């Protein structure tokens, strides 16, 4: 480590992307997470056109084929499902639907929830009350029940599924954001901005939102797993994604009845969900530190030590 740097000298600051890349390199867990997520995204983009046919072709002689049979082609390495379809191929093909539903629902609910939360925390008490009571209504309803009713009425499609799942998750973001805004808006730097004549929007989006943001990203990554599982529950009830379309959640619920004699049917898609959410968690954790100027040194210091 360099000892010579005294606190009066000013270190040359590299540009933003280089800095982020360096900090990512310093946190090896986050680096693995990013690589994994990139692979998942690529698979989601090319999966259906690449292996789509293979994943739906039934092969009743290979029903519940055990995994780790290295003599077969690679798509069979994770075994096969109850209709003899290769699991690995199905997982790859299912990535697209799974990510679309989960990411769609999480992004939609977090954006709407955050905006409403900002409004509820910053505008007049009456508007805030109205928004909060609406959130209470949504929260007091069992979320799966709303989903069942709405999907039953509107028919199940991916878009409807995304909409329904996001509506049930909006209050989580709304309440968190509002609580944070109520605290942050009393802070001195917000007062200072008001003294300068900053508009409400400026205060909300330049001063308050960046402070709330880390909490929200953490929340969103946790929600990712929840939404995937909620989607599988809906599919299980027959109102979510319908076969022959596949998602990881659906694969888990399809494998449930074979758990005692063919564990791999549920295990592999479950692992995919765990790995994805774990990676997202690691990434959000890294992001929280990397974006915080006060905490950033932890990563920059590590990088210096390693490289």
């Amino acid at each position: 480590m360099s000892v010579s740097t005294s606190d009066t000298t000013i270190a040359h600051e590299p540009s933003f992307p280089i800095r982020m890349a360096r900090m990512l390199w310093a946190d090896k867990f986050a680096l693995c997470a990013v690589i994994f997520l990139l692979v998942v995204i690529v698979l989601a983009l090319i999966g259906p056109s690449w292996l789509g046919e293979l994943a739906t072709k039934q092969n009743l002689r290979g029903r519940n084929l055990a995994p780790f049979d290295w003599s077969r082609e690679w798509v069979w390495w994770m075994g096969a499902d109850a209709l003899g379809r290769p699991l690995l191929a199905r997982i790859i093909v299912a990535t697209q639907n799974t990510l679309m539903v989960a990411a769609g629902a999480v992004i939609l609910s977090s954006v709407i929830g955050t905006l409403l939360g900002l409004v509820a925390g910053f505008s007049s008490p009456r508007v805030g009350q109205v928004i909060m009571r609406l959130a209470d209504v949504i929260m007091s309803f069992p979320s799966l029940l709303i989903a069942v009713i709405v999907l039953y009425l509107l028919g199940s499609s991916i878009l409807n599924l995304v909409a329904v799942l996001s509506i049930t998750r909006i209050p989580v973001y709304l309440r968190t954001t509002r609580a944070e805004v109520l605290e942050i808006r009393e802070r001195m730097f917000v007062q200072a901005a008001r003294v300068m004549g900053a508009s409400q929007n400026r205060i909300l989006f330049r001063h308050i939102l960046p402070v709330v943001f880390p909490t929200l990203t953490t929340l969103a990554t946790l929600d990712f797993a929840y939404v995937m599982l909620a989607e599988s529950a809906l599919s299980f009830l027959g109102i979510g994604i319908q076969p022959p379309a596949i998602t990881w959640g659906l694969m888990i619920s399809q494998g449930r009845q074979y758990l005692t004699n063919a564990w791999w049917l549920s295990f592999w898609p479950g692992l995919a969900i765990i790995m994805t959410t774990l990676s997202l968690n690691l990434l959000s954790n890294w992001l929280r530190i990397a974006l915080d100027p006060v905490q950033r040194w932890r990563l920059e210091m590590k990088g210096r030590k390693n490289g």
Partner: protein
Amino acid sequence: MAEHLLEVRNLSVEFHTAAGVVHAVRNISYHLDRGETLAILGESGSGKSVSSAAIMNLIDMPPGRISAGQILLDGKDLLTMPPQARREANGRRIAMIFQDPLSHLNPVYTVGWQIREAMTTHGMPTGQAKSEALRLLTRVGIPDPEGAMGKYPHEFSGGQRQRVMIAMALALRPDLLIADEPTTALDVTVQAEVLALLKELQRETGMGVLIITHDLGVVAEIADRVVVMEKGELVETGTVRDVYKNPTHPYTKKLIGAAPGKGEMHVAQLSGQPLLSVRDVRKRYGSFDALKGVSFDLRAGETMAIVGESGSGKSTLARVLLRLDEPDAGTAQWKGRDLFQLSPSELYKLRRDLQMVFQDPTQSLNPRMTVFQLVSEAWAIHPDILPKRQWRERVAELLVQVGLSAEHMSRYPHQFSGGQRQRIAIARALALEPQLIVCDEAVSALDVSVQAQVIALLDKLRRDMGISFIFIAHDLPVVRDFADYVMVMQKGEVVEMGTVREIFETPREAYTRALLAASLDPDPDGSGRTPGSPSQTCMTNRRAADKRS
């Protein structure tokens, strides 16, 4: 050689940070005997708190590391002790009180429970702990100690909370009491009381007191010997009188020279049209009258100091004038317009003329913005002041003007010291080229020498740019060198108003005199009150302050 109660020998502590190794404390030695008070005097960043944290085992390791030295308590080295024995020593032998009692008392437990806990964790039976807690609360002068046992920390005033902290610290009859800035957060009159209490308790129990402070006045009031620290090194040590009268080290000289309240007083010229004319402003919070009709005039280029203790309404007045809070009644004429009647768009224009510098720059600067973003935000909000391509240049100019350098632009606030942060805040206020700057306790959170520098900076701005100031402070000496007029406030009312000379030389009201008397004189032989016997006015004041909670 007789054994000292506490002896620190050649202690060095370093912290590993992104910028390399910081030597927080370098090779310092001092000692403390029973019944003695040793003050460690230093400004922020001098490492004065680090050595006491090392004594209490409060340094986070890593990033901290004690690289050399010994800390001997009755001849036994605390640093090589097994952790179990170390914990035994903490609390039982050594106790500590902190600067901010509110953040060091647990808000969800009653005060009585917290004092008892200190004793029961060290093995005292519950019944005995209870009666002992009651005795302690009575001893430290909490009114109605029985009732106070069942109250929560927020129900006490600042001074009372510090008394509760002292009671907690004394619960196990420690041999050594470490007081880290025990009175910094308190009003001057309350500060004098708490120091007197500490002194009394020390006489009773014969404990050694290690007091860490940045305030020469506190040192003169309570300490027997003093250790002066600068940048992690011990620069001077000796009895309080010797160090004050014959400082040998240049840093000590500078520190003593920087104590406020020695310079020439301003002579105000009573002429010209008032720039701001405030009449009968009132503000209520619920049933609490924060402002009960305040009026004053301020002319261009003048400085009005508003002095009062916490709860006097001085900050409320500032917030009302800047329309951060709406007043309930009254007018404030600014160049012929009533500030309180302005529409939002007029108010937006007014923001350019009227700026504010807040007390704590750590909180008033957004931690996620760089200095450039912070200062240039003013022009983002008021785009007609300066075209965007000149921002960089002008920020550099402003930074130089407030005594920073242009290279600081891309840094974040946490990379600066307290005084530098306040300079950034001043630069931000100047960016709008205002005519009046309201400084709400703008130097209270700063070190004495930095305080002097910031006041000098404000003074220069006033002369160069003709800016008027409303300067709010809780401490009279600070405003003595800077203000033209002084307004003393108490409980939402103006007690006394006059030129700075009138207030300091011929104060009419008892409260003003009490405030003047309670300010601690840094001279150990000075005219300050004799410790332990607070004057009658002070006593009544303390009761009034304590009742407030």
